[in-house]
């Protein structure tokens, strides 16, 4: 049995969870304490198995009323995949107009998530 301190990132409370778990045969959470709600337990389990994160960035817009359109993932992605997904975002160029929630990149670097616009950008007049 092992013990680990994890900060739950699901909400701003940021509970400092104490997680007791076993590694053999597979990772299995035995108990979670210091969590203010049930989401903390689910989060601790997924964090130990495979940490998932949302990322936010921006993509260059051609002929837009803004130079950049802010974007984010619509599904959390594995922490180790962040670098590849960022590379896909950096290479991308889009054309105005763009509407909020529009999918700008489908499955970046093969990762099961979409990169969606978090603002609308009009055509520059």
């Amino acid at each position, binding site marked *: 049995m092992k013990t680990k301190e994890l900060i739950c*990132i699901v909400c*701003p409370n940021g509970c400092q969870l104490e997680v007791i778990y076993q590694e053999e045969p597979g990772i299995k959470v035995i108990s979670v304490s210091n969590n*203010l709600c049930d989401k903390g337990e689910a989060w601790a389990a997924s964090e130990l198995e495979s940490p998932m994160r949302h990322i936010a960035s921006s993509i*260059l817009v051609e002929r837009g009323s803004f*130079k*950049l359109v*802010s974007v984010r993932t619509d599904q959390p992605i594995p922490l180790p995949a962040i670098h590849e997904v960022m590379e896909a975002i950096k290479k991308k160029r889009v054309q105005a107009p763009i509407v909020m929630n529009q999918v700008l990149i489908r499955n970046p670097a093969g990762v099961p998530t979409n990169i969606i616009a978090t*603002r609308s950008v009009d055509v520059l007049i």
Partner: protein
Amino acid sequence: MMKRIKRKVVVIGGGPAGLAAAISAKKAGCDDVLLIERARILGGILNQCIHDGFGLHRFKEALSGPEYAQRFIDEFRSLDIDVMTETIVLTMDRRRVLQVSSKAGLLEIQAGAVVLAMGCRERTAGAISLPGTRPAGVYTAGFAQNVMNLENMMVGKRAVVLGSGDIGLIMARRLTLEGAKVLAVFEILPYSSGLPRNIQQCLNDYDIPLFLSTTVIKIHGEHRIDGVTVAQVDDRMQPIQGTERYLDCDTLLLSVGLIPENELSQEAGVRLNPLTNGAFVDDTLMTSVPGVFACGNVLHVHDLVDHVSAEADSAGKNAADYVQKGKNDPKIRIPVTPGEGIRYTLPQTISGKRDVTLSFRVEEPARNRRVMVCDGDRVVKRKKVIRLHPAEMVQIPLKKDILKDVRSLKVYVE
């Protein structure tokens, strides 16, 4: 001659506070609401906060700043509220006469009520008196956020962050994602001033070290910064000899605090509280100048935008009531003061005649404590809190029934 007009409720600032205040004033039945914003677009600081984490309380979703703002902008537009963008309020006086400058020229507005929602600005190197030269490459974290997220400008390749406020943590991650190397975050206090979740997802995830009780003691470089010297500090915040080390960097980001932007308020004679740098307010969020209300970061620095919106809902409604019903409140002012372990409380006075939410911050991190609200020896309310942190505002709602016959309130940590 300068054009003069009369308006019922004028909201200064179109960030989340101003938007919510204008919406709630209109919904409270005031047909004449005007919002004034100096920028080209509405949304305030949220436009540059492209990370997610907004709206978890209000919408039960993790939105980015622009998405959170857009929900309010849509509602604002659907209510057909008057707005002047690219317009700045230059001055305001005690009688609520505003001098306003826009592309169309100067305008004078006599307002029935005013809601102050001007937000805050960042403390700079000058404000914290950093020794050394003043080369290029030293920026506030919010400035870096603005130019990176809105102007597509990269600020540097090897960065050091001074101060562990949330903006600094978020920018440490942003710079890393954009390919820069963030060497470390240094915090002079013995604890971080950012939210724990940001320590995890902005620093730990990217192996960026955080050094507590450590600060930058010198900035090096002629034209562009080429390094900083850092040192540990003792409990009087003095650098400890022998702990100095040099870091080679081309960028220093400062995340050393925010100051409410109250020049305009002061001109109008609004009394400021030195503990918050914002106005003294009563339980309607009215300042010391009758008919002038305040909410959001101009009133006190908030860590969560959800709280900003809730506070602004109430300021906007109260401003509408003030112009429509007149101030029918009896002039009762029951003082609310911070006691042991509390840095400030807000509002600073209450009437005892209405429900009120007390907002406050603690002085030091603590675990498993009780926060007490007392009238002399009498306990009016107690709240168990698992974790208290100076970076997190705490709120306690009080129903008016328990405020009957209260003569004063003191909030303290037990």
